[in-house]
Protein backbone atom coordinates (compact mmCIF):
# COMPACT_ATOMS: atom_id res chain seq x y z
CA UNK A 1 0.00 0.00 0.00
CA UNK A 2 1.34 3.43 -0.84
CA UNK A 3 0.64 6.13 1.67
CA UNK A 4 1.12 9.72 0.66
CA UNK A 5 1.35 12.55 3.11
CA UNK A 6 0.25 16.01 2.09
CA UNK A 7 1.12 19.22 3.81
CA UNK A 8 -1.87 21.47 4.09
CA UNK A 9 -0.99 25.11 3.85
CA UNK A 10 -2.74 27.71 5.91
CA UNK A 11 -3.33 24.94 8.42
CA UNK A 12 -1.40 24.21 11.58
CA UNK A 13 1.90 25.62 10.29
CA UNK A 14 0.32 28.84 9.23
CA UNK A 15 2.27 28.75 5.95
CA UNK A 16 0.38 30.53 3.24
CA UNK A 17 1.23 30.89 -0.42
CA UNK A 18 4.45 28.88 -0.09
CA UNK A 19 6.52 28.67 -3.25
CA UNK A 20 9.25 26.19 -3.98
CA UNK A 21 12.74 27.44 -4.81
CA UNK A 22 15.89 25.67 -5.82
CA UNK A 23 18.74 27.19 -3.88
CA UNK A 24 22.38 26.57 -4.70
CA UNK A 25 25.07 27.45 -2.21
CA UNK A 26 28.68 27.57 -3.37
CA UNK A 27 31.16 27.22 -0.56
CA UNK A 28 34.76 28.10 -1.43
CA UNK A 29 37.95 28.49 0.54
CA UNK A 30 38.81 32.17 1.03
CA UNK A 31 41.30 33.49 -1.53
CA UNK A 32 44.04 33.83 1.12
CA UNK A 33 43.80 30.14 2.07
CA UNK A 34 45.97 27.67 0.17
CA UNK A 35 43.99 24.95 -1.61
CA UNK A 36 46.25 21.88 -1.95
CA UNK A 37 43.45 19.92 -3.65
CA UNK A 38 43.06 22.61 -6.32
CA UNK A 39 46.82 22.72 -6.79
CA UNK A 40 46.99 18.95 -7.31
CA UNK A 41 44.19 19.08 -9.88
CA UNK A 42 45.96 21.97 -11.64
CA UNK A 43 49.10 19.83 -11.95
CA UNK A 44 47.02 16.94 -13.31
CA UNK A 45 45.42 19.24 -15.90
CA UNK A 46 48.85 20.50 -16.95
CA UNK A 47 50.05 16.90 -17.28
CA UNK A 48 47.14 16.30 -19.65
CA UNK A 49 48.30 19.20 -21.77
CA UNK A 50 45.80 21.83 -20.64
CA UNK A 51 48.52 24.38 -20.05
CA UNK A 52 46.15 27.31 -20.47
CA UNK A 53 44.73 26.66 -16.97
CA UNK A 54 46.20 29.25 -14.63
CA UNK A 55 44.52 28.36 -11.34
CA UNK A 56 42.19 25.71 -9.95
CA UNK A 57 40.31 26.02 -6.71
CA UNK A 58 37.92 23.41 -5.41
CA UNK A 59 34.78 24.12 -3.41
CA UNK A 60 31.46 22.55 -2.54
CA UNK A 61 28.03 22.91 -4.08
CA UNK A 62 25.06 22.44 -1.78
CA UNK A 63 21.70 22.24 -3.53
CA UNK A 64 18.48 22.63 -1.59
CA UNK A 65 14.78 22.69 -2.35
CA UNK A 66 13.11 25.23 -0.15
CA UNK A 67 9.49 26.17 0.43
CA UNK A 68 9.04 29.73 1.56
CA UNK A 69 6.88 32.81 1.05
CA UNK A 70 9.33 34.68 -1.18
CA UNK A 71 12.79 34.48 -2.67
CA UNK A 72 13.95 37.25 -0.32
CA UNK A 73 12.75 35.39 2.74
CA UNK A 74 14.36 32.17 1.48
CA UNK A 75 17.67 33.95 0.86
CA UNK A 76 17.66 35.47 4.31
CA UNK A 77 17.15 32.04 5.91
CA UNK A 78 19.84 30.43 3.73
CA UNK A 79 22.31 33.15 4.72
CA UNK A 80 21.64 32.25 8.33
CA UNK A 81 22.15 28.53 7.53
CA UNK A 82 25.48 29.33 5.88
CA UNK A 83 26.75 31.34 8.82
CA UNK A 84 25.62 28.70 11.31
CA UNK A 85 26.45 25.43 9.58
CA UNK A 86 27.05 25.25 5.85
CA UNK A 87 30.24 27.35 5.75
CA UNK A 88 33.01 28.00 8.25
CA UNK A 89 33.52 31.78 8.25
CA UNK A 90 37.15 31.41 9.40
CA UNK A 91 38.25 29.75 6.16
CA UNK A 92 35.33 29.80 3.71
CA UNK A 93 33.21 32.23 1.67
CA UNK A 94 29.78 31.40 0.31
CA UNK A 95 27.60 32.51 -2.61
CA UNK A 96 23.83 31.91 -2.70
CA UNK A 97 21.93 31.48 -5.96
CA UNK A 98 18.15 31.17 -6.01
CA UNK A 99 16.22 29.81 -8.99
Amino acid at each position, binding site marked *: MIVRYYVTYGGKNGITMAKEFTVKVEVKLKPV*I*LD*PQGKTVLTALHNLGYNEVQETRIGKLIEMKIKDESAEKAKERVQEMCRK*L*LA*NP*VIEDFVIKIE
Partner: protein
Amino acid sequence: MLNFGVVVFPGSNCDHDCYHVIKHVFDQGCEFVWHEEKSLDGFDCVILPGGFSYGDYLRTGAIARFSPVMKSVEKFALSGGLVLGICNGFQILVEAGLLPGALMKNSSLKFVCKWVSICVENNDTPFTHLMKVGDILRIPIAHGDGNYFATPDDIKNLNVIFRYCDKEGRITYESNPNGSIENIAGICNPRGNILGMMPHPERCSEEILGGEDGRLIFESIISWLEKPESIRKIKTYG
Protein backbone atom coordinates in the same frame (compact mmCIF):
# COMPACT_ATOMS: atom_id res chain seq x y z
CA MET B 1 38.43 9.69 43.17
CA LEU B 2 37.90 12.09 40.28
CA ASN B 3 35.15 11.65 37.75
CA PHE B 4 35.92 12.04 34.04
CA GLY B 5 33.25 12.20 31.34
CA VAL B 6 34.05 10.90 27.85
CA VAL B 7 31.53 12.24 25.33
CA VAL B 8 30.42 9.71 22.72
CA PHE B 9 29.22 11.12 19.39
CA PRO B 10 27.95 8.89 16.59
CA GLY B 11 31.27 8.02 14.92
CA SER B 12 33.60 8.59 17.89
CA ASN B 13 36.16 5.78 17.92
CA CYS B 14 38.75 6.74 20.55
CA ASP B 15 36.17 6.92 23.33
CA HIS B 16 37.02 3.47 24.69
CA ASP B 17 40.76 4.22 24.61
CA CYS B 18 40.20 7.34 26.73
CA TYR B 19 37.91 5.43 29.09
CA HIS B 20 40.48 2.64 29.45
CA VAL B 21 43.34 5.02 30.23
CA ILE B 22 41.40 7.02 32.82
CA LYS B 23 39.82 4.00 34.47
CA HIS B 24 42.47 1.30 34.28
CA VAL B 25 45.77 3.13 33.91
CA PHE B 26 45.03 6.00 36.30
CA ASP B 27 42.41 4.34 38.47
CA GLN B 28 40.01 7.28 38.30
CA GLY B 29 36.26 7.37 37.83
CA CYS B 30 35.11 7.55 34.22
CA GLU B 31 31.75 7.52 32.47
CA PHE B 32 30.65 7.66 28.88
CA VAL B 33 28.37 10.58 28.10
CA TRP B 34 26.06 10.03 25.11
CA HIS B 35 25.88 13.08 22.85
CA GLU B 36 22.17 13.53 23.59
CA GLU B 37 22.79 14.04 27.31
CA LYS B 38 21.98 17.51 28.58
CA SER B 39 23.83 17.51 31.89
CA LEU B 40 27.48 17.26 32.85
CA ASP B 41 26.86 17.63 36.56
CA GLY B 42 29.32 15.75 38.74
CA PHE B 43 32.20 15.64 36.26
CA ASP B 44 35.61 17.11 37.05
CA CYS B 45 36.90 16.92 33.49
CA VAL B 46 35.20 16.31 30.14
CA ILE B 47 37.01 14.65 27.22
CA LEU B 48 35.88 14.96 23.61
CA PRO B 49 37.56 11.93 22.04
CA GLY B 50 38.89 11.29 18.56
CA GLY B 51 37.02 9.66 15.72
CA PHE B 52 34.86 10.63 12.79
CA SER B 53 31.73 12.11 14.32
CA TYR B 54 28.91 12.18 11.77
CA GLY B 55 31.26 10.67 9.19
CA ASP B 56 33.17 14.00 8.96
CA TYR B 57 30.35 15.12 6.63
CA LEU B 58 30.31 18.77 5.54
CA ARG B 59 33.39 19.63 7.66
CA THR B 60 35.02 17.73 10.50
CA GLY B 61 33.14 18.46 13.72
CA ALA B 62 30.61 20.74 11.98
CA ILE B 63 27.56 18.62 12.81
CA ALA B 64 28.71 17.19 16.17
CA ARG B 65 29.11 20.76 17.35
CA PHE B 66 25.29 21.05 17.39
CA SER B 67 24.78 17.89 19.48
CA PRO B 68 22.66 18.57 22.58
CA VAL B 69 25.61 17.79 24.88
CA MET B 70 27.67 20.62 23.38
CA LYS B 71 25.52 23.28 25.09
CA SER B 72 26.46 21.70 28.42
CA VAL B 73 30.12 21.39 27.37
CA GLU B 74 30.09 25.12 26.65
CA LYS B 75 28.50 25.89 30.01
CA PHE B 76 30.92 23.54 31.78
CA ALA B 77 33.90 25.19 30.05
CA LEU B 78 32.73 28.75 30.67
CA SER B 79 32.38 27.98 34.37
CA GLY B 80 36.04 26.92 34.43
CA GLY B 81 35.65 23.14 34.01
CA LEU B 82 38.49 21.30 32.25
CA VAL B 83 37.70 20.26 28.69
CA LEU B 84 40.17 18.20 26.64
CA GLY B 85 39.48 17.76 22.93
CA ILE B 86 41.65 15.16 21.19
CA CYS B 87 41.80 15.00 17.38
CA ASN B 88 38.14 15.01 16.29
CA GLY B 89 37.41 16.51 19.72
CA PHE B 90 39.73 19.42 18.84
CA GLN B 91 37.91 19.83 15.52
CA ILE B 92 34.56 19.96 17.34
CA LEU B 93 35.89 22.58 19.80
CA VAL B 94 37.01 24.93 17.01
CA GLU B 95 33.73 24.45 15.12
CA ALA B 96 31.89 25.28 18.33
CA GLY B 97 33.93 28.46 18.71
CA LEU B 98 35.28 27.36 22.10
CA LEU B 99 38.77 27.58 20.58
CA PRO B 100 39.81 29.99 17.79
CA GLY B 101 40.77 29.02 14.24
CA ALA B 102 39.88 26.09 12.00
CA LEU B 103 41.27 22.67 11.07
CA MET B 104 41.64 22.06 7.35
CA LYS B 105 42.59 19.12 5.17
CA ASN B 106 46.26 18.10 5.60
CA SER B 107 48.42 19.93 3.08
CA SER B 108 49.60 16.54 1.74
CA LEU B 109 45.92 15.59 1.16
CA LYS B 110 46.74 12.31 2.87
CA PHE B 111 45.58 10.77 6.11
CA VAL B 112 48.68 10.81 8.31
CA CYS B 113 49.13 8.09 10.93
CA LYS B 114 52.52 8.06 12.64
CA TRP B 115 54.55 8.96 15.72
CA VAL B 116 55.62 12.60 15.90
CA SER B 117 57.46 14.82 18.36
CA ILE B 118 55.81 17.84 19.91
CA CYS B 119 57.39 20.39 22.21
CA VAL B 120 55.75 22.06 25.16
CA GLU B 121 55.38 25.79 24.72
CA ASN B 122 53.28 26.67 27.77
CA ASN B 123 53.38 24.67 31.00
CA ASP B 124 51.22 27.10 32.92
CA THR B 125 47.95 25.22 32.33
CA PRO B 126 46.13 22.44 34.19
CA PHE B 127 47.03 20.11 31.30
CA THR B 128 50.78 20.73 31.23
CA HIS B 129 51.89 21.92 34.67
CA LEU B 130 53.97 18.76 35.32
CA MET B 131 56.05 19.44 32.19
CA LYS B 132 58.73 22.00 31.49
CA VAL B 133 58.70 24.47 28.62
CA GLY B 134 60.73 22.89 25.83
CA ASP B 135 60.01 19.30 26.91
CA ILE B 136 59.63 17.00 23.93
CA LEU B 137 56.84 14.40 23.88
CA ARG B 138 56.80 11.46 21.47
CA ILE B 139 53.16 10.93 20.60
CA PRO B 140 51.05 9.41 17.78
CA ILE B 141 48.87 11.34 15.35
CA ALA B 142 46.16 9.91 13.07
CA HIS B 143 44.16 12.43 11.08
CA GLY B 144 43.21 13.70 7.65
CA ASP B 145 42.21 17.19 8.76
CA GLY B 146 44.81 18.49 11.21
CA ASN B 147 46.04 21.49 9.29
CA TYR B 148 45.45 24.25 11.82
CA PHE B 149 44.69 27.70 10.53
CA ALA B 150 43.98 30.96 12.33
CA THR B 151 43.80 34.55 11.14
CA PRO B 152 46.85 36.75 11.89
CA ASP B 153 44.85 38.52 14.62
CA ASP B 154 43.99 35.22 16.30
CA ILE B 155 47.58 34.00 15.97
CA LYS B 156 48.87 37.07 17.84
CA ASN B 157 46.75 36.23 20.89
CA LEU B 158 46.95 32.46 20.62
CA ASN B 159 47.73 30.38 23.70
CA VAL B 160 49.87 27.76 21.94
CA ILE B 161 50.54 24.68 24.07
CA PHE B 162 52.24 22.23 21.68
CA ARG B 163 54.13 22.58 18.39
CA TYR B 164 55.35 19.83 16.06
CA CYS B 165 59.14 19.59 16.21
CA ASP B 166 61.96 17.23 15.33
CA LYS B 167 63.61 14.84 17.81
CA GLU B 168 65.91 17.61 19.04
CA GLY B 169 63.01 19.99 19.60
CA ARG B 170 63.64 22.18 16.57
CA ILE B 171 60.46 23.53 15.01
CA THR B 172 61.08 22.83 11.34
CA TYR B 173 59.11 22.58 8.10
CA GLU B 174 60.05 18.88 7.83
CA SER B 175 58.66 18.06 11.27
CA ASN B 176 55.25 19.54 10.42
CA PRO B 177 53.07 16.55 9.44
CA ASN B 178 50.00 18.38 8.15
CA GLY B 179 50.85 21.94 7.12
CA SER B 180 49.61 23.53 10.37
CA ILE B 181 50.31 27.23 10.59
CA GLU B 182 53.44 27.79 12.73
CA ASN B 183 53.61 24.02 13.43
CA ILE B 184 50.71 24.26 15.90
CA ALA B 185 49.68 20.90 17.38
CA GLY B 186 47.63 22.02 20.37
CA ILE B 187 46.13 25.22 21.79
CA CYS B 188 44.26 26.41 24.86
CA ASN B 189 41.72 29.17 25.27
CA PRO B 190 43.13 32.31 26.97
CA ARG B 191 41.88 31.11 30.36
CA GLY B 192 43.71 27.80 29.93
CA ASN B 193 40.91 25.40 30.84
CA ILE B 194 40.08 24.15 27.32
CA LEU B 195 42.81 22.22 25.49
CA GLY B 196 42.47 21.08 21.89
CA MET B 197 45.20 18.91 20.38
CA MET B 198 45.56 16.73 17.29
CA PRO B 199 47.98 14.12 18.77
CA HIS B 200 46.57 11.25 20.85
CA PRO B 201 47.87 11.11 24.46
CA GLU B 202 45.53 8.17 25.20
CA ARG B 203 47.42 6.08 22.65
CA CYS B 204 50.73 6.49 24.44
CA SER B 205 50.02 6.09 28.13
CA GLU B 206 51.23 2.51 28.51
CA GLU B 207 54.64 1.02 27.72
CA ILE B 208 53.01 -1.86 25.81
CA LEU B 209 51.77 0.66 23.24
CA GLY B 210 55.27 1.91 22.53
CA GLY B 211 55.42 5.03 24.65
CA GLU B 212 54.22 6.68 27.83
CA ASP B 213 54.65 10.39 27.13
CA GLY B 214 50.87 10.86 26.95
CA ARG B 215 50.68 10.07 30.67
CA LEU B 216 52.09 13.51 31.44
CA ILE B 217 48.91 15.17 30.18
CA PHE B 218 46.57 12.95 32.21
CA GLU B 219 48.85 13.14 35.27
CA SER B 220 48.86 16.93 35.02
CA ILE B 221 45.04 17.03 34.87
CA ILE B 222 44.67 14.65 37.80
CA SER B 223 47.23 16.33 40.05
CA TRP B 224 45.74 19.75 39.22
CA LEU B 225 42.21 18.57 40.04
CA GLU B 226 43.41 17.00 43.29
CA LYS B 227 44.75 20.33 44.54
CA PRO B 228 42.44 22.18 46.92
CA GLU B 229 40.18 24.50 44.97
CA SER B 230 41.67 27.60 46.63
CA ILE B 231 45.14 26.85 45.23
CA ARG B 232 43.90 25.94 41.77
CA LYS B 233 44.11 29.13 39.84
CA ILE B 234 43.44 29.43 36.19
CA LYS B 235 45.58 32.19 34.84
CA THR B 236 44.62 34.51 32.04
CA TYR B 237 46.73 34.79 28.94
CA GLY B 238 46.85 37.00 25.91
